[in-house]
């Protein structure tokens, strides 16, 4: 196992990143830091730029301006992206992974590909690798799924196996793009608890995107709030405030504390974007229950 960065050591620094896609500025001057052993929530409504930001960090999307430093080494800059440079140091769980049920791949094969999926040739049988894969599956409470085809797994089970795939190479940073999107409340809770445990046990830094911050409130050390391509970051109490978010959205936003939940609410005639703000109760007739 490579040396685990000391808790609090900086593993990711995003500095003044601007991204343009198809002539539109999708990210505007985004900057924040992520530290080892910390759980950072990347919160924002649909289309805020969460996926784009994660792709920039991975080196899959070169920023027009600004730079990214991963694990102390150089990552993407405006001169070039270069996933090869960050692949070893960053684990990634993409948004919406859909697997064909006929795909002849067991959970353990997918985790194994997390170790050497970029390598050429046919892997030789290797006891060390097998033990590492088994241990990783156990660590995400998916040991019993090792021999199941990944296409037959439930959403929560697949999410665990994808986390194992991303973590098995012992990256310093784990990026997860909306991993809670298709989970029921129980699986959501289990995945969040699992990730919180892994940050403690392995010292890995977690950066997790979500449109609703509430499931993350108990575990989040830091929040990066993204709205319309602009970001504010810091502790939850510092960021999730009316003046900060109103500035970010560019119009009045209300922040309501209802018991232990936080609701971000736009004015009754606010733009559509604000209507989709994180944690917003939807208009009557479209109510979606998310428990307490």
């Amino acid at each position, binding site marked *: 196992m490579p040396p685990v960065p000391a808790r609090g050591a900086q593993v990711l620094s995003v500095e003044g990143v601007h991204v343009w896609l198809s002539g539109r500025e999708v990210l505007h001057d985004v900057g924040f830091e992520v530290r080892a052993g910390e759980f950072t929530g990347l919160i924002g409504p649909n289309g805020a730029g969460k996926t784009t930001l994660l792709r920039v960090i991975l080196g*899959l999307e070169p920023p027009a301006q600004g730079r990214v430093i991963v694990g102390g080494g150089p990552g993407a800059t405006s001169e070039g992206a270069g996933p090869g440079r960050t692949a070893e140091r*960053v684990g990634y769980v993409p948004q919406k*992974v859909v*697997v064909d049920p006929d795909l*002849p791949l067991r959970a353990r094969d997918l985790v194994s*590909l997390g170790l050497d999926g970029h390598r050429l040739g*046919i892997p030789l049988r290797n006891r060390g690798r097998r033990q590492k894969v088994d241990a990783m599956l156990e660590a995400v409470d998916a040991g019993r799924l090792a021999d*199941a085809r990944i296409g037959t797994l439930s959403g929560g089970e697949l999410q665990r196996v994808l986390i194992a795939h991303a973590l098995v190479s012992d990256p310093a940073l784990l990026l997860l793009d909306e991993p809670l999107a298709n989970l029921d409340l129980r699986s959501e809770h289990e995945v969040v608890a699992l990730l919180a445990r892994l940050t403690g046990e392995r010292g890995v830094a977690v950066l997790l995107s979500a449109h609703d911050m509430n499931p993350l409130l108990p575990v989040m050390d830091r929040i990066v709030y993204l709205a319309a391509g602009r970001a504010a970051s810091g502790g939850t109490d510092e960021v999730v405030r009316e003046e900060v978010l109103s500035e970010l959205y560019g119009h009045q936003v209300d922040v309501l504390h209802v018991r232990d939940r936080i609701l971000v609410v736009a004015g009754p005639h606010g733009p559509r974007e604000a209507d989709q703000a994180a944690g917003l109760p939807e208009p009557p007739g479209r109510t979606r229950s998310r428990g307490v």
Partner: protein
Amino acid sequence: MHVLFEPGFFTDGPVRLALVLGGAVAVVSGLVGVLTVVRGQSFAGHALADIGAAGGSGAFLLGVNPLWGFVVLGLAAAGSMELMGLQRARSRDVATGIVLGAALGLAALFLYLDASYTSTTGVTTTVLFGSIFAVSGSIVPVAAAFAGVAALAVVVLFRPLLLASVNPELAAARGVGVRMVGLAYLLAMAVAVSLSCLTIGAILSTALLIGPAGAALRLTRRPGRAMAVSAALGVAAVWLGILLSYDSYYWPPAGRGWPVSFFVVALVFLFYLASSLRSPRHGHRRGAR
């Protein structure tokens, strides 16, 4: 009364050549085919076969071995399919189908010209249904080299291809050049299909690409093992097909012999049917290998 192994079967020159070439082609098609099925590119494989028909018939017009026609046009088509993004086939079936139709039109023209202006007879049958007993000895080393390169390509790119078939973003994040790997794979598939065109014909070549692979994927859930099983099933179908075809000279109508391609395709179909009876998807969903 004669036995299946007719005296002279293994000493007959064309038969030996057919067994060697057919075996090599079956191995390559089997290896490449598993990834074709896994990546959902069966339709692209079929399009490449029809494009091969145009290449093969064009080669006859030029007076060169059809293998060159199959390979050259196949590689060109694979390259342009990648450029057009056609290999992400599921959503681009229409474009693939249009290319395929155009290729068949070209094949119709070339075959007509072949029949009208050259003295070669049976070109149509050779291109569409293969000519494993009539392959010229001089092309065998070339075919073997192509087979070797294509097999090597899929073995070398095995893991990146597999990861990209789960999710391209997942592969890209691990530093895999997803487009380059996809292009290399498509070229390997074009070569495998070309070789198959040479032996069992352009129309039937997809059967050897998809059939054994499809059956293997029903028999095992491990990708590496599926490739081995698929290659073995392909070789079994081709060799048995050659044997039966040789034997069929004694079948009615006496003295004519049935085409190898028929037997190969029929055997592939039977293997696939048999494998469906024992699919790992049914019954033991979890836990079993």
